């Protein structure tokens, strides 16, 4: 990676942005699919049947990961901008590794639940 971008603070910011793009692309499909609930449980089941496929489960895992990454790196921004935590010289690099680990843990739990 380019030396200008090869550090935690940058990776967290880009991770938040890229995961945000993924979620923004996914959301319209999510909302449109949920609309099939107008046809009751059968309406939803028409699409939910595909969630038994392993490929779909992997895709869902990726989406859960994107949401968790976006959440935790977003919390980082809120912490940086509205608190003085942590009180260390270069605090912009803080919360990146714990946040990333937390996101992947949630992803791991998801995988365990679906497989």
């Amino acid at each position, binding site marked *: 990676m380019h030396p200008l971008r090869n550090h935690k603070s940058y990776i967290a910011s880009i991770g938040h*942005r890229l995961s*945000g*793009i993924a*979620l*923004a692309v996914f*959301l*319209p499909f*999510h*909302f*449109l699919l*949920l*609309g*099939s*609930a*107008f046809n*009751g*449980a*059968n*309406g*939803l*089941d028409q699409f*939910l049947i595909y*969630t*038994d496929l392993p490929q779909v489960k992997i895709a*869902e895992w990726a989406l*859960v990961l994107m*949401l*968790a990454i*976006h*959440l935790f790196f*977003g*919390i980082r*921004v*809120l912490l940086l*901008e*509205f608190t003085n935590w942590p009180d260390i010289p270069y605090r912009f690099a803080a919360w990146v590794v714990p946040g990333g680990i937390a996101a992947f843990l*949630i992803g791991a*739990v*998801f995988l365990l*639940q*679906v497989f």
Partner: protein
Amino acid sequence: MERYLFVAQRVSAMILGPLVLIHLGLILFAVRNGLSGAEILARTQGNIGWTLFYGIFVLSVTIHAPIGIRNILYEWTGISRPASNIIALLFAIFLLTAGLRSVTAIY
């Protein structure tokens, strides 16, 4: 306007934080033993709590996502500021209508 968009972005983020955590928790619980329409609707139909929850979720996302997309479009695709504003606004209108429609569908 930049100041108001910035404040809206951060306030919607603060609202979304706990909502997303709950949503993730629900996902992890609900995917056990597969997803079914009946199970989902049994939870949400006629339930004012979940309706309010997802209603607020949709409103917050309608504010939060388009403001982010607006910046990304302007910074990464080279389109003009007015064009990025229009696309973001259209995206917001879409999210609001499709989102509130979804909330209605599961009530």
